[in-house]
């Protein structure tokens, strides 16, 4: 079974086939086998279109002449069927023939190169063999490179199959070594010692249509089956299996390194969720693990048939998408939204095209679909996806030259590992041997990329830690600035008892408040909140408090004070705003309020109805309406920020205005504690003020 439009798997499979083909031909040219070939030449046998072999303790390649016919008929398995008018097919590699995938010699083109260019589905090979010599049990060793599945008949009896032929359209798998023991009854047919025994082999092949576009010369056998002593065949079979396992076991190294890198990246992301590069690198590495494991499972086992193989191009698109996003984030190209949209669109389009082909057009099974517009579209999208890394590389290099060179190296290696064709153009072999072990260039690239990825992760984490430490220092300084600007509590002014609590959220928030004495012996109470958080919010709070203190010296009314603040904040808020409520309270309890979009205060647990207007910093020229009230002696005013009403519990439920109104009757410590317990999401500031006097006692 040929890789479904994927270079990686084709090369992996062919790499294994190459080694196994060498083994097969080595077996065929052993001294014993040569001697037997000579014996064959001198044998006297009845049929002209038959192969004559003499077996010792060896196996012999059955190069032919085979008889071949496309189509399907159960009678063709019969030993007595007359196949004389069938096409004769020689399975000796033509001189100078090379594997189109690897460029290695000894390749036998399939039936599409032998007069049946459009033949897909079923076809039969038949061979009449006369065996002389040793009469032990025989076995047939089938080549690994076949298209795609087959059943083996010996003298009309089914010996076994490679692939599942119990369904109308057989399930096929990647080629694997297969051995079929010929029944002892066949060996016992010997009439007399030394006489040739007749064996009629019939191979029923099934090739799926997609092979026509995935291999230049597909169709049936790409190597000769081998017949010989079951003991020797079994030994070769075991050797083939072990070579296959040894060859592909090397791939477990990059898989393990990718797994390690992926888990490390996700762990780093859990530790620092601000740097999304860890998330994407983790996703890319783990999707690579999934893809490589899937591919190896398809090659080494029969767990994944051609029905499931459609998942592989989908997985490959997933891998490509995750890697492209990882590099996009790594190179800090966030401002190039068109590039991100391009990556998402192409990946989604490619997946959709693959699913459509698989589900509705039987991609791989229907020849029309294999060549149809959907397939062409899919290949075009794939080409575009292959170009995106170059765009990322170009802009990424310009954006971050210093770090870029490290990532660029990994990106180039990754591209070569995924699309190794340029290496062939540069005459760099894709398969070579070191210390007797077959090495794939792709394997080396995968290994280097995975190790490089680990190195990049370490470098990135170190850099991230440095930046984070720097930010923490800045935040700490901002918090200190904010703390020094906020008044210390409790404060006492003649005639008033004041208490305040400020509980910042995790970050530096934007809450602020001031309680300033007036020249008339009264108080100016200002409380507010800057939208946003962090250093920017802290700096805006500094600006507001500085301006506020300057304006407060002019004894302005609350409305005028808010107007002045708004004027100074306009165009300095970068899209944000500041809410603020301002109250001036005279010693005789007269209170004037103005509100710029802030939560109204509560007087003895009742929300004060105060006209409100837009928060500050959005537009200029707002006349903040003022309204006057009386705060009776003994009454209690509570000002707060939205950290109370917008506290949220685990279910996402807001604390809300109704509960806040009830809570406003409690002490400020209780108000703060309740909101925090409910689920603090923002800074919490509460200012409580009691006008001293002879009315009913109030508590703060």
């Amino acid at each position, binding site marked *: 079974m040929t890789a479904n439009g994927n270079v990686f798997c084709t090369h992996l499979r062919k790499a294994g086939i190459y080694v196994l083909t060498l083994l097969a031909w080595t077996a065929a040219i052993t001294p014993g086998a040569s001697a037997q070939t000579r014996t064959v030449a001198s044998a006297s046998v009845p049929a002209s279109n038959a192969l004559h072999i003499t077996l010792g303790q060896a196996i012999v390649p059955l190069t032919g002449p085979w008889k071949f016919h496309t189509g399907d008929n159960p009678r063709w398995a019969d030993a007595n069927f007359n196949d004389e008018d069938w096409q004769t097919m020689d399975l000796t590699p033509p001189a100078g023939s090379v594997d189109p995938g690897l460029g290695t010699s000894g390749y036998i083109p399939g039936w599409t190169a032998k007069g049946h260019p459009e033949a897909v589905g079923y076809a039969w090979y038949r061979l009449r063999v006369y065996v002389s010599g040793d009469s032990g049990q025989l076995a047939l060793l089938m080549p690994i490179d076949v298209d795609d599945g087959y059943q083996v008949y010996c003298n009309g009896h089914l010996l076994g199959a490679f692939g599942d032929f119990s369904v109308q359209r057989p399930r096929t798998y990647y080629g694997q070594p297969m051995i079929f023991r010929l029944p002892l009854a066949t060996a016992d047919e010997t009439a007399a010692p030394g006489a040739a025994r007749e064996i009629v082999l019939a191979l029923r092949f099934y090739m799926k249509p997609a092979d026509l576009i995935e291999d230049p010369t597909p169709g049936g056998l790409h190597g000769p089956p081998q017949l010989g002593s079951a003991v020797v065949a079994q030994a070769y079979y075991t050797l083939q299996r072990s070579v296959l396992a040894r060859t592909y076991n090397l791939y477990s190294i990059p898989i393990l390194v990718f797994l390690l890198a992926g888990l490390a990246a996700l762990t780093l992301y859990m530790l620092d969720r601000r740097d999304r590069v860890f998330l994407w690198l983790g996703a890319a590495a783990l999707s690579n693990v999934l893809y490589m494991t899937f591919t190896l499972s398809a090659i080494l086992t029969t767990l994944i048939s051609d029905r499931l193989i459609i998942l592989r191009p989908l997985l490959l698109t997933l891998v490509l998408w995750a890697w492209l996003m990882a590099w996009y984030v790594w190179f800090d190209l966030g401002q190039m*939204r068109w590039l991100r949209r391009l990556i998402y669109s192409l990946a989604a389009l490619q997946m959709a095209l693959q699913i459509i082909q698989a589900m509705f057009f039987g991609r791989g099974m229907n020849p029309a679909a294999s060549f149809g517009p959907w397939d062409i579209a899919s290949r075009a999208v794939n080409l575009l996806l292959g170009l995106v890394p170059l765009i990322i590389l170009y802009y990424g290099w310009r954006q971050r030259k210093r770090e870029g060179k490290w990532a660029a190296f990994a990106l180039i290696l990754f591209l070569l590992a995924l699309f190794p064709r340029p290496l062939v153009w540069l005459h760099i072999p894709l398969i070579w041997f070191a210390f007797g072990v077959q090495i794939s260039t792709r394997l080396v690239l995968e290994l280097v990329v995975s190790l490089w990825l680990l190195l990049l992760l370490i470098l990135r984490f170190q850099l991230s830690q440095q930046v984070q430490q720097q930010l923490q220092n800045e935040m700490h300084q901002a918090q200190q600035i904010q703390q020094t600007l906020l008044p210390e509590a409790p404060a006492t002014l003649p005639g008033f008892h004041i208490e305040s609590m400020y509980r910042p*959220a*995790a970050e530096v928030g*934007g809450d602020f408040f001031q309680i300033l004495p007036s020249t008339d012996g009264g108080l100016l109470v200002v409380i507010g*909140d800057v*939208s*946003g958080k962090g250093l920017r919010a802290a700096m805006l709070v500094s600006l507001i408090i500085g301006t506020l203190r300057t304006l407060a010296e002019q004894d302005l009314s609350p409305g005028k004070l808010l107007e002045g603040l708004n004027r100074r904040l306009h165009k300095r808020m970068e*899209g*944000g*705003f500041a*809410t603020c409520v301002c109250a001036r309270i005279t010693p005789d309890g007269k209170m004037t309020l103005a509100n710029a*979009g*802030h*939560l*109204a205060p509560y007087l003895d647990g009742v929300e004060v109805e105060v006209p*409100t*207007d*837009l*928060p500050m910093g*959005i*537009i200029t020229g707002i006349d903040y309406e003022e309204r006057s009230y009386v705060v009776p002696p003994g009454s209690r005013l509570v000002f707060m920020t*939205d950290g109370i*009403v*917008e506290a*949220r*519990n*685990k279910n*996402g439920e*807001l604390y*809300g*205005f109704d509960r806040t109104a009830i809570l406003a009757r409690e002490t400020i410590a209780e108000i703060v504690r309740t909101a*925090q317990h409910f*689920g*603090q*999401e*923002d800074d919490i500031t509460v200012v409580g003020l009691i006008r001293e006097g002879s009315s009913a006692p109030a508590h703060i």
Partner: protein
Amino acid sequence: MTMQPQLITRVHVDQAKAGDGSPIGVLRFSGDITSTSRDVLFGGYAEVPATTRKLVFDFSKVEYLNSSGIALVIELLMAANKADRKVQSFGLSPHFQKVFIMVGLNKYTHLQADEATACAAFVD
């Protein structure tokens, strides 16, 4: 402290007709509206043809609006106001209706009970 996972902001733009047959751009917001929602909100706003003078903001699928989200809605309303567009809103929970009134947004958008009322509220 219990921080809620943030839902992705989405804006779907629909078209409706006012009583006089003029087009209404309906911006259907969903998810959480926070500081990270700017691109989505303004992207949706930009999708409405410049010739459409009437807008309806549908908040019925908005889960949460924090102060930065309110800032974005204000900015959006200011942009509409500057472009001489009329905006009706519906679908806000009582809590956020109060927040809208608290920050004075009711001067820039009328809060309506439902979409039909919002569309019918445009009077030229």
